[in-house]
């Protein structure tokens, strides 16, 4: 019975509170708003039960009061207990949390059903003679069914919220991290320089730059053929090539691909480019002597694996290394979020430091749109 109220509470919780307190799928049931909602909804539920039990013409106010009392007891005490143990539940696995909450509600229902019967037993009768095990069982069944439904609802809501938040973050971060002001102004500077000496190249840079910006300004969830993402990466690396000159070498290794795979496989837009950008921005730019970025595409069964290797910045100052990792982290988190949203477990992004190289490995399933 107490579960219906929580159902409503879950919906409410999606509002303002969701942002502050949504890292756990069991909502906080102790704040005043939650309690008011619990009381109101319990009352409504009691009304439903009474009406069903007595039928309308015979609606009995005494009956309604007793049912209400029992429902309120169960609801508020269960909510109170769950609210108290909530900090401990946080650390448990989802299944354990569900099980413990269900147990709490059932024990609570059993206790109060029993107490309820004892309280309403008229003094002149023996308790044993009116004790009704069936009534308690009936209450338990109702409580169990409603609890399972509602806790499952909480869980689904919570997962939905997480996913929404991840996507929102991904979009925000992609906007923020995409347009590196330095990249924009340096590219403008390149164009300004080339207009006088090499107008054709200048024109091409304008075209490449426009395409990069068009891609980065799009809303974040489009799927594109792998080929267009790779083309975008190549356009990006052409601009960086002009900027860094002989300091930058980008090697593309795409040999192991069957024909057509490039065009057919769909990936989220801007999945690769930020990784290449990081490799150049953190691996090549800080090195006066420059370096080589290797990008390798491999066909691994159901997966495509992309490996990007870049040298480590030659700085021996730990503080600078940390700074660079921080910049790197934003883009990596962003891509991880999107991989999780699109591919679930199958999409992976791993980074590792080997000898003097930084290796980024991205793998994702060969999704083909029908």
């Amino acid at each position, binding site marked *: 019975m107490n579960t219906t109220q929580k159902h409503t509470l879950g919906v409410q919780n999606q509002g303002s509170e969701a942002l502050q307190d949504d890292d756990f799928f069991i909502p906080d049931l102790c704040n005043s708003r939650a309690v008011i909602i619990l009381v109101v909804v319990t009352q409504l539920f009691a009304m439903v039960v009474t009406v069903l039990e007595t039928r309308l013409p015979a609606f009995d106010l005494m009956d309604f009061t007793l049912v209400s009392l029992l429902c309120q007891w169960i609801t508020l005490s269960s909510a109170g207990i769950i609210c108290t143990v909530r900090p401990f539940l946080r650390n448990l696995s989802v299944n354990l949390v569900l099980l413990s909450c269900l147990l709490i509600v059932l024990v609570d229902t059993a206790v109060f059903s029993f107490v309820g019967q004892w309280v309403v037993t008229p003094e002149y009768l023996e308790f044993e003679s009116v004790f009704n095990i069936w009534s308690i069982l009936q209450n338990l069944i109702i409580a169990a069914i409603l609890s399972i439904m509602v806790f499952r609802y909480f869980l689904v809501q919570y997962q939905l919220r997480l996913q929404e938040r991840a996507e929102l973050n991904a979009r925000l971060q992609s906007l923020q991290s995409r347009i590196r*002001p*330095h990249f924009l*102004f*340096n590219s*403008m*500077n*390149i*164009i*300004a*320089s*080339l207009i*006088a*000496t090499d107008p054709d190249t200048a024109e091409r840079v304008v075209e490449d730059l426009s395409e990069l910006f068009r891609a980065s300004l799009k809303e974040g969830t489009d799927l594109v053929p792998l080929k267009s993402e790779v083309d975008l990466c190549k356009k990006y690396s052409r601009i960086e090539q*002009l*900027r*860094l*000159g002989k*300091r930058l070498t980008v090697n593309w290794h795409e040999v192991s691909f069957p024909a057509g795979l490039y065009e057919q496989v769909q990936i989220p837009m801007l999945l690769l480019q930020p990784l290449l950008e990081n490799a150049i921005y953190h691996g090549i*730019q*800080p*090195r*006066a002597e420059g370096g080589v970025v290797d990008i390798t595409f491999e066909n691994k069964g159901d997966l495509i694996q992309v490996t990007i290797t870049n040298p480590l910045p030659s*700085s*021996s*100052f*730990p*503080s600078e290394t940390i700074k660079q990792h921080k910049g790197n982290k934003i883009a990596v988190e962003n891509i991880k979020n999107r991989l999780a949203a699109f591919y679930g477990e199958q999409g992976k992004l791993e980074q590792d430091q080997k000898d003097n190289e930084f290796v980024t490995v991205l793998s994702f399933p060969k999704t083909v749109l029908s």
Partner: protein
Amino acid sequence: MKVLICDDEPLARQRLSRFVENMEGYEVVAEAENGAEAIEKVNRFDPDIVLLDVRMPGMDGIEAAQHLSGKDEPPAIIFCTAYDEYALEAFKVDAIGYLMKPVRAEDLGEALNKASRLNKSQMQALNKVTQEEGSRRRSHISAKTHKGIELVPVDDIRYFRADQKYVSVRHSKGELLIDETLKNLEEEFGEAFVRIHRNSLVAVRYLNGMELDSPGHYQVKLKGVDDKLVVSRRHIAALRKVMQKL
């Protein structure tokens, strides 16, 4: 007026160079790709004005300006940068000019004219780049020698030793005297160096063991140089701790 252009991007240098060559009375005497190269070329070509990019690999423009300001007759520095960022906020940079890329020819001309009108003392006052406390570390240590400004990468330094008025900087190729205090160096380079004596600060990365010289007297050995340095008693424990982490 002799101008030196320093930017890590070839096309950026090319554009500035074109502008400068088109202006009457100015010539480009050299180009550099990073701060360290700029200082070396300032020694060699003695330019009147340096156009300095802020963000460069190796040594950036801010640090290069810091080192250049130690010169007796420093060139006028005009910073060029693609984007106004934290780099300049953290510093009080009194540059003659501060140009945003893509640089406009008029702005460049104005800055160059302003620079050429200044007298030496004005220039010296303007070139001062004052570092805010603890805000960052230099990548190089510079000293004024007969050859001009000499640079030693901090990574190459074995130890600093205070000697009367100066601090001597021992690196793989020799020694250099600088006018700084061990205390400031210790603060600036924090974990990279460890204090072993009142008068010496050694590079952690080159530590190569501690040995007993005579009863109660310890010395440290360093990789790449034969010098052995005395460890004072009160620094032994701290030094041991550092060496255990290696």
